[in-house]
C-alpha cells in the first residue's frame, strides 16, 4: 500500500498520542490508584442516617488526627447538610486550617448532585446509593464556595455553602 510521506508522519503522530494517553491513563488507574470518587462504597439512599458517617452528630467537620479532617455531607435538593452548631442552627461554613489533609465524603438522599469547591480540585458527582469521597490538601488559604454543578431541580442555583481555609 502506498502512503504519502505526510500521511505516514501524521499517522505516527496520532497513534503515538493515543499510546501516550493510554499509558497515562493506565499509570493513573493501576499504579497511582486513581478511581472515580464514588468508587464501590454503597449506602441505602432512603436511610443514610443509619450509616455511621452520616449520623446527625457526625455530619460536618470532624478532626480525626493531627492535621487530618473528615467532612461528612448529606446533599439533598437543595441543601448541603453540614450538621448543626451548638445553638442548633444549620452550619453554612466549614473552617479548615491550611495544609491539612481533608477527606470529603458525601452522599445524596434524592437525585444526583454535584459537589464542587470552586477553584480547587474538589469536584465530584454525588449519586443516590453511593458514597463519593475525595481526599485533598488545601495549600492556599482563602474562602472557597461549595456549589452544586449538576442540575438538580428548580432550587439548584441556591444549593451552596462555604469552606474557609485559614492560617492557624
Amino acid at each position, binding site marked *: 500500500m*502506498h502512503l*504519502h510521506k*505526510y*500521511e505516514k*508522519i*501524521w499517522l505516527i*503522530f*496520532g497513534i503515538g*498520542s493515543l499510546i501516550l*494517553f493510554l499509558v497515562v491513563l493506565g499509570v493513573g488507574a493501576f499504579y497511582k490508584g486513581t478511581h472515580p470518587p464514588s468508587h464501590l462504597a454503597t449506602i441505602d439512599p432512603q436511610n443514610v442516617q443509619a450509616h455511621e458517617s452520616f449520623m446527625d452528630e457526625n455530619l460536618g467537620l470532624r478532626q480525626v488526627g493531627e492535621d487530618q479532617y473528615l467532612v461528612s455531607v448529606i446533599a439533598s435538593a437543595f441543601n448541603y447538610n453540614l450538621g448543626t452548631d451548638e445553638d442548633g442552627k444549620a452550619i453554612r461554613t466549614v473552617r479548615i486550617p491550611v495544609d491539612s489533609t481533608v477527606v470529603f465524603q458525601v452522599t445524596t438522599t434524592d437525585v444526583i448532585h454535584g459537589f464542587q469547591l470552586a*477553584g*480547587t*480540585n474538589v469536584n465530584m458527582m454525588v449519586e443516590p446509593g453511593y458514597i463519593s469521597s475525595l481526599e485533598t490538601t488545601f*495549600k492556599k488559604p482563602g474562602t472557597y464556595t461549595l456549589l452544586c454543578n449538576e442540575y438538580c431541580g428548580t432550587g439548584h442555583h441556591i444549593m451552596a455553602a462555604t469552606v474557609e481555609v485559614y492560617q492557624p
Partner: protein
Amino acid sequence: MSKSSLQMKKKQAPKEEEQPELKGTFIAVMGLGLFILISWFIVYFIFVAR
C-alpha cells in the same frame, strides 16, 4: 501507432495523480494535533498546581 500512443497516455495519467498536494492538509492535521496536546498539558498542570 496512434492506438499504442493513446494507451500509453491512459496508463501514464493516473501515475501523475498519485502524488496529491497534501501540504495544507498536513499543516491543518499537525496544528490540530498540537492544539489538543498543548491543551491537555495546560489542564494537567492546572490540576497539579491546585
